[in-house]
């Protein structure tokens, strides 16, 4: 009897002590938990879970996986890498069917917005959030975020040094209208080009964008990376939808391309988010912490030439979808897309 009472008292004590310290009991609480023992809880939990399933659009995923598995032996990363459209399709379809297979999502903000609006993302806390400026976080509350921008690709003007001299290159949006550039400019027909049109509208207004039509701009339906290769080959003299990281890689191989920022540099971001029904939440949080840690950022920046939100650059960055709802962004985006089509049409 004495033993029993002791046991009951012990259980009550244990329960109340964990309650009074706010120990997390479900995924939502765990994600928002910011207690001093967070790291210990996560590591212990992750070891039990043994794995984390990661859906990503990140090029550098294999290297990230290797570094993470080296740091936390006993937690295996299963990665599915795809483009943002397929990733979103899969995530939504699985969630709809009640098959919660994914633990961490890393993709572009429009897809993350769709996930957030469908209530499929859990707000999370990370000690690394303090390194990031507000613009690069999608805040859910004061302490927690829906996602953190773990990498940025910056869009500006790319040109081929063999086709055009550095002194003659446009320095800002207004310069683009110079008649000598007629027939020399190409643009990517996908989101990259449209978002740049958005930046021009923001700085210069719609009338300015419409005047670009006189330049006979050629619209190429290839990805930003392929467009940069065609630029290096000399098929076009310049394009205002070129990614900075691609140019840096080509330059390191002796290629003739250069990148310059214009009035506003569009940031194509990738954010890390936690699915609300993640089966391995401890490992998920550990993995997100790692992605946005100085260590993870260093790999993405040095080896893969992404820009980091943690850093300052000598030009102004713009996140087109920041602060918008899905509907608002879609409306604006469609308008940019339409304008892009208008100015590139014969």
């Amino acid at each position, binding site marked *: 009897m004495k033993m029993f009472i002791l046991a009951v008292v012990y259980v009550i004590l244990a329960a109340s002590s964990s309650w009074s310290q706010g120990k997390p009991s479900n995924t939502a609480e765990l994600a928002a938990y910011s207690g001093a023992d967070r790291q210990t809880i996560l590591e212990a939990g992750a070891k039990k879970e043994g794995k984390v*399933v990661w859906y990503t659009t990140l*090029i550098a995923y*294999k290297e990230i996986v290797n570094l993470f598995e080296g740091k936390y032996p006993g937690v295996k990363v*299963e*990665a*599915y*890498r*795809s*483009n943002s*459209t*397929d990733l*979103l*399709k*899969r995530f939504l*379809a*699985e969630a*709809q*069917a009640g*098959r919660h*297979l994914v633990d961490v999502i890393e993709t572009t903000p*429009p*897809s993350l917005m*769709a996930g957030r609006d469908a209530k499929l993302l859990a707000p999370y806390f990370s000690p690394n959030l303090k390194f990031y400026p507000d613009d690069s976080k999608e805040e859910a509350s004061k302490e927690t975020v829906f996602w953190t921008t773990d990498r940025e690709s910056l869009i500006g003007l790319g040109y081929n040094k063999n086709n055009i001299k550095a002194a003659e290159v446009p320095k800002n949006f207004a310069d683009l209208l110079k008649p000598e550039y007629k027939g020399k400019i*190409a643009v990517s*027909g*996908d*989101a990259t080009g*449209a978002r740049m049109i958005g930046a021009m509208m923001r700085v210069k207004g719609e009338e300015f964008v419409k005047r670009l039509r006189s330049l006979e701009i*050629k*619209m*190429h*339906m*290839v*990805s*930003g*990376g*392929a467009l*940069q*290769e*065609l630029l*290096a*080959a*000399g*098929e076009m003299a310049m394009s205002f939808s070129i990614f900075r990281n*691609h140019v840096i890689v*080509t330059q390191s*191989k*002796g*290629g003739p391309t250069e990148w310059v920022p214009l009035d506003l540099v569009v940031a194509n971001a990738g954010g890390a988010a936690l699915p609300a029904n993640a089966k391995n939440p401890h490992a998920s949080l550990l993995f997100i912490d790692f992605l946005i840690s100085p260590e993870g950022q260093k790999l993405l920046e040095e080896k893969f030439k992404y820009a980091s939100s943690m850093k300052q650059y000598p030009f102004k960055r713009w996140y087109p979808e920041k602060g918008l709802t*899905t*509907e608002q*962004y*879609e409306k604006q*985006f*469609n308008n940019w*897309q339409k304008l892009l*089509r208008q100015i*590139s*049409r*014969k």
Partner: protein
Amino acid sequence: MSRAAETSPGLWLRRSERALNPNFWLFMITAAVLIYLVVPPFFFILSASFIAERGPNVGALTLSHYVSIVGSLDDFGVLIWNSFIFSVGSAFGALFIGTLLAWLTERTNAPFQNVAYVSAFVSFGIPGIVKVIGWILMLGPEAGLVNVIAEDLTGVSPIFNLFSMSGMIMVEAFVWTPVVFLLMATPFRSMDPTLEEAALTAGSNNLQVFRKVTFPLALPSVLAVLILTFVRSLEAFEIPALIGLPAGVEVLTTKIFLQIRTGFLPRYGEASAYSVLLIILVGLVLFFYHRVTSQGYKYSTVTGKGFRPRRIDLRSWRWLGGALLLILPLLQLLPLAALTWSSFLPYVQPPSKKALAALSFDNYSSAFGDGAIIWAVLNSLFVSMTSATAVVALTFVSAWIVVRTNISKRRMLDQLATVPLVFPGLVMGVAILKMYLAVPLPIYGTLWIIFFAFVVRYLPYGIRFSYAGLLSIHRELEESSAACGGNWRQTVWKILFPLMLPTLFAGWIYVFLITIRELSVALLLYSPGSQVVAVVIWELWENGRIGEVAAFSLVFTLGTVLLAALFKRLAHQQSLNV
């Protein structure tokens, strides 16, 4: 049933025999399999086209997707005209070149016949988008290899501008030429020479024989191929977008697909509405096609008489024929040449002393540097071999039932197998995904989901190959087997199958080579641990390294073509070599 049925022994004469008739049960099983494969995705597409995806009325019935498709078509007259010129131009271009090649290869003594076969196979192995980049590198107006060299020689620049309507037609025609070539080789290979000899005896010259005998005999195959290429180029998006848009040329599909694809979230509703409209259109085309081919016996070219098709001696024209056989594969290989060049370079550049100094194998070592590639290759081989086998087996049986039996609903099999032709990849991937998330089979997250997607997607091609083979084999061969006491299984296994093997093999190899690098479905459906080669190619492509993509595609294609050649040898040992 009645009169027609009574004339063909072995078929269900009386109602009571139906239950015992193996043909009937074969039909039921085949129909059930096809329905299972095709109808759920079709149903998904149909319902998606009528249901609002987003906005305040999400989930409600709507016609807005159809309205929006039709509404996107301003300048309708121009779009229709451009689409018409493009489809007709490329379909006839591919048909003309492919048929000529097939005839030269199978029916003349022109040299380099194997070169034509090999180049056809090689061309299937390279992803379309990679090939288009190859064309841009070769014929781009500013930096294309051909234009740069021609400018040095002639001072004219550019001599050919790829970014134009003629450029679009040319590239699309070259994409389809190898398919036409393989489909047309069958009727030419297995044609009854007595008919041609009769014409020759009657005083016709070679040209007249071709025009009045050879060509009409091949006509059903020609029509089938024409429909395939026409429908494909009508719904082609890649080439109109990659080559037409920089030139400012828009066709129906670029207009519609730009609206569907360039939204920031995919618009399944509109994509589905569009494919429903296409299904109706293709249905009409098929209806007329069936009216032409329903009397298949007229066109049988392999009969019971022993023969080998006569090869025309081209005499002094022989080398012209050979040159044609060589030029056309060369044109196929032209973009590959540009790719091969860039596969040895750190970044894409025209030939120069500096470029020659920079040549290296770096792209090859980095493209193959990852050990996980071996698993992807094994996965790909497995899934492509199984799906090619399944497609060929299923369509062979379907085509046999349609051509040889009198079961009243037999045409349904052909229609079922053809419908996926118009499922857009964008929607079909999701349809399959949702289907296997719902079906209680443990397929989701394994390679098998990709297998099922491939089978559905390539049924329409398989059925055309099977038809081409069956239409040309006369029923009397099967009947004489039956007359000699051969049972149904022996007839199929010992007579029909060996006779059809070359065609079935061509179909098999087509599906095998095209699925092994198929991207639109694989990228959505693969899972961690079931990665396939196409995903590797896509990753290299996304990283923007054309050189690495080229290196990987070239080596991988070479490997698969060698493998295909090995299979071909094995298949020929089994066949009767007609």
